[in-house]
């Protein structure tokens, strides 16, 4: 149990630092940045206290906001996907998730991709809507959401493959 807490605290700190010090300076094609920090929310243990989980996600988003001077946009997006995660899990993994025997290390790649994609797109849509905060720029919001999502999803999948433990 302690090792789980340690792993996730470590992951929290590493992801925040990676996000604010490296990933936010990529600016691919001028404005595209991956938001890898949501990996913490995506890979949080399945058996969890939901209240603690939602609160931690909020804290994660707020820490990112603190570094990026972006008000509360990351916090709002993170807390939303943390709240929606159980439903998305049920949708993408179906029966495997219901039996509570699932582990992220040994699930089908297709379902994992669906799960990552849905949550990433929701997160990015809220993030850019709040950041741009202007309904008349909906095209810009959708465009940013689409391209950044692709970037984030590829990076998330790569990271999980690289850091997966071989059984």
């Amino acid at each position, binding site marked *: 149990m302690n090792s789980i807490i340690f792993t996730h605290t470590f992951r929290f700190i590493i992801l925040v630092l990676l996000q604010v010090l490296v990933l936010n300076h990529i600016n691919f094609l001028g404005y595209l940045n991956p938001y890898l920090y949501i990996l913490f929310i995506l890979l949080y243990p399945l058996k969890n206290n939901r209240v603690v989980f939602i609160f931690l996600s909020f804290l994660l988003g707020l820490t990112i906001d603190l*570094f990026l001077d972006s*008000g*509360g946009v990351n916090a709002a997006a993170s807390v939303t996907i943390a709240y929606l995660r159980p439903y998305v899990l049920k949708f993408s993994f179906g029966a495997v998730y219901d039996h509570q025997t699932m582990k992220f290390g040994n699930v089908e790649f297709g379902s994992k991709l669906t799960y990552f994609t849905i949550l990433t797109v929701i997160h990015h849509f809220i993030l850019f809507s*709040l950041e741009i905060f202007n309904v008349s720029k909906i095209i810009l919001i959708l465009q940013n959401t689409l391209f950044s999502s692709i970037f984030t999803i590829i990076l998330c999948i790569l990271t999980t493959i690289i850091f997966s433990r071989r059984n």
Partner: protein
Amino acid sequence: MQQIINFIIRNKAFLLYLLLFSIAMVFTIQSHSYHKSKFINSANFLTGGIYKSVNDINEYVNLKTQNEILQEENSNLKSILFNQTDTINKTFIDSSYSGIFYKFYPAIVFKNSYSLSNNVLLINKGKKDSIRQDFGVISSKGIVGIIDNTSNKYATVISILNTTSRISAKLKKSNHFGSLVWNTKSPEFIQLTEIPKIAPLTKGDTVVTSGRSTIFPKNIPIGIIDSYQLDAAENFYTIHVKLFNDMTSIEHVYIIENKDAEELNTLINNTNE
């Protein structure tokens, strides 16, 4: 009562979500209104400290280019100094009056962003160095932004690449003035609006600060006209100005304090009342 408590316990996840989401929304809305982001900003001990230590490393990498920029500025200043024609025939200066309107403080940028729609910079001067809100920030090539929040050692700067910033600017040639806004498209270009239709425009004209606010002195360079078009009502021009500053690489900046700002502001407020 029992039922209410039961309801809260049953829906605690959803209620917590609503609560946290509204807190995040409050912070977001605050950050979108000028000078309101009091709590969530990077001018604090933790984030400022981390950015500082990372910047210490980055500084070495950029040393050469930054040196060249500073050298270029030095040569400009020297040329002004040695080209002064009549240093002897100056009019008599009253020694009881210092004559200094603007005070400059050097500072270093720790954090810079240019890809968001509300970009904010972090610099290494704060309340301790008597930096306060609404001081202007310029680099050797042109304007950078306006000081927003200050902590003891750090301050955040609202970049000109920020949808909430509006800086008064004018055409150097004809003195027609308007305000600078940013359409979030490119960090190289900024838009000058509200220039009247009768103003004569040519591509390549210089745009400078107008000195109409207490923040920036007159004639600080901003950029050159790249293209222009009339707005929908055909009364005003919207001009795309190519910035002299490369906002994507800024390290050494100067903070401008207007010594008379307080006096001017009270005077204006009194007149308005």
